[in-house]
């Protein structure tokens, strides 16, 4: 039974405002926003915490396009391809149209993703109930290897990062025999590495280190006309086909373990470039289709990523990895049994996300000028405050300084890795998925009674075989689509 209280709307609203502002600020990612928002909710009841986190998620994804259009700097990775046509459109004097289209198609993409989640989620949940450890092992491995392989041109570095994350997940007590592993006899590591502290470090503190260099205040001297931000029917009508396939692409890519809105938007942009022969303007020079495709896809991907997360317990991307961590923290265990035991939470999430998406649309319109003013807020004031939020967030986990040390350590290591061109997202996925991979691998090994029978079972079990084929197919398809999507932008 889903009981809805009006106060939840307030939580979603506050979350969406925070998400929109953080998403709009260049350098502050959606993942970082969620990590910091999660740290506020440690002592909260489950449902208000869900409302708050989901509001921030919806707002953060939409907020990324504001700086992409106004400044030629994507606020989030998912808004990278919005820059290609959004900024040229602004230079043509159509900033209102650009942001108006972006916000509207985000709303459409988000709602589309949710509708599909509502129908497909329960079905996928039923299929997932038939999964054994073999199937789970394959799916979780698929998640971390796919995100690593998709680290454009840095596959081996992505794999190193992913397996580093798995190693971090192994620190502490062995889940089956209770053996203490890699703790060096210290109390600091005996309970394992707190994954939320590690995430705050990898996404929050690391970004602070990155921003230390870029402390220049942004120069913006324009305003939006609120009335013109509501999209014109004439334009939207021409964008319906683009929105349709982009929403489907975004949702499907969001569904794949390890991929999310950032990849979905790139692929949708690439697909639209090759499908639309007569765009409103040439791509790269302010084509409306060039804004509609990535923005629809990155919001539709939210529904896809949540489907995988809620029904299989596997985070679709780094944002859902953080969200799944937050769910664990609040005692909620997404996975195949989630639809049986916590079905009401499933519907809460859908309702909150729907409200959050609609709210973010209107906040984006009415608050756009305020957000432009916030973009002018000096970096020398923002960056220290973010580091303070990271300290507070990690301290509040257990009210001790050990988690602060872990957070700073991971922030610094994440910074070093990023400076050496290693992607950071696979580490987080590795930390979250590592224990799942290990438990399922060992259960599968025990039930198969040996390594050779285990390998054989991957092809003799029908569901495992289907997943194996899907894995191989997705690798081929993803490498192909990523190449075609990324190539034209590199020009």
């Amino acid at each position, binding site marked *: 039974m889903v009981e809805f209280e009006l106060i939840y709307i307030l939580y979603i609203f506050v979350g969406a405002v925070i998400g929109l502002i953080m998403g709009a600020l260049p350098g502050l990612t959606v993942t970082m926003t969620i990590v910091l928002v999660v*740290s*506020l*909710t*440690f*002592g*909260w009841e489950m449902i208000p915490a869900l409302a708050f986190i989901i509001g921030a998620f919806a707002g953060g994804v939409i907020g990324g396009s504001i700086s992409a259009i106004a400044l030629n700097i994507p606020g989030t990775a998912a808004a990278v391809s919005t820059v290609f046509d959004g900024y040229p459109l602004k230079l043509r004097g159509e900033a209102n149209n650009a942001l108006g289209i972006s916000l509207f198609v985000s709303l459409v993409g988000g709602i589309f993703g949710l509708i599909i989640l509502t129908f497909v989620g329960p079905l996928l949940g039923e299929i997932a109930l038939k999964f054994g450890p073999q199937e789970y092992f394959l799916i979780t491995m698929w998640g971390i290897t796919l995100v690593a392989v998709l680290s454009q041109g840095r596959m*081996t570095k992505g*794999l*190193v990062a992913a*397996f*580093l994350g*798995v*190693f971090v997940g*192994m620190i502490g007590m*062995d889940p*089956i*025999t209770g053996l203490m*592993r*890699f703790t060096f006899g210290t109390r600091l590591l005996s309970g394992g590495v707190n994954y939320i502290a590690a995430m705050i470090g990898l996404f929050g*503190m690391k970004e*602070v*280190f990155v921003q*230390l*260099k870029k*402390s*220049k*205040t942004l120069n913006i001297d324009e305003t939006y006309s609120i009335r013109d931000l509501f999209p014109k029917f004439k334009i939207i009508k021409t964008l319906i086909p683009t929105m349709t396939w982009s929403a489907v692409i975004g949702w499907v890519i969001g569904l794949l373990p390890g991929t999310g809105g950032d990849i979905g938007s790139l692929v949708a942009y690439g697909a639209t470039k090759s499908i639309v022969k007569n765009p409103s303007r040439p791509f790269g020079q302010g084509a409306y289709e060039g804004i509609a495709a990535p923005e629809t896809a990155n919001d539709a991907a939210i529904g896809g990523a949540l489907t995988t997360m809620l029904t299989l317990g596997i985070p679709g991307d780094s944002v859902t990895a953080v969200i799944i961590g937050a769910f664990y923290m609040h005692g909620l265990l997404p996975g195949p049994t989630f639809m049986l035991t916590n079905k009401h939470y499933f519907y809460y999430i859908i309702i909150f996300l729907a409200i959050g998406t609609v709210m973010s649309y209107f906040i984006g319109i009415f608050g756009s000028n305020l957000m432009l003013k916030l973009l002018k807020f*000096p970096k*020398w*004031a923002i*960056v*220290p*405050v973010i*580091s*303070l939020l990271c*300290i*507070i967030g990690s*301290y*509040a986990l257990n*009210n001790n*300084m050990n988690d*602060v*040390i872990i957070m*700073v350590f991971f*922030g*610094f290591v994440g*910074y*070093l*890795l990023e*400076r*050496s061109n290693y992607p950071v997202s696979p580490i987080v996925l590795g930390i979250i998925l590592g224990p799942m991979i*290990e438990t399922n*691998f*060992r259960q599968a*090994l*025990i039930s*198969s*009674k*040996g*390594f050779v029978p285990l390998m054989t079972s991957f092809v003799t079990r029908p569901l495992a075989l289907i997943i194996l084929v899907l894995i191989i197919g997705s690798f081929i398809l993803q490498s192909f689509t990523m190449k075609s999507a990324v190539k034209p932008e590199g020009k």
Partner: protein
Amino acid sequence: MKRFKPIDLVIYAIVGGIVAIVLTSISSWVNKDGMKLFETTSPLVFPFLIGVALFIFLILTIISDFRNSSKEKEDGEDKNDLGHDVLMAAVYAIGVLIYAFIVPSLGFIVGTIIFLAIIMILMNYEEANIGKRAIRAIAVSAVIVPVLHFVFYQVFNVMLP
């Protein structure tokens, strides 16, 4: 060695160190504690596979970096810049840790105002006048910290250091 960037060497050392820790720990469990590695119920088999996988991917990364090094040499970033940035990040990290350990004795509001003001003064490169920098930094942190204290402690019931 000149073909690699110093930061790459640091990462190789970190990852190589982790591989060494994993494999030596496993070796110690096998040889000293008599645990079996390749048994279906062994708690060592998964860490062993991860250690080996990390080692293989590290070697592949080193080979790939070696191949790309000549290409990157021309358009690569200035080594001094990188060293300066990493040093700045390290100093900042140490500063954060010092703050985290000192703040319980100073009190959250006073300790945090001092911490934020110092960082803001150091980060405000755009303002040449150090006096103006200091006044702005102290004013901003004196406003922000009580607000954050109220929001986290009073509204959200979050424990503060």
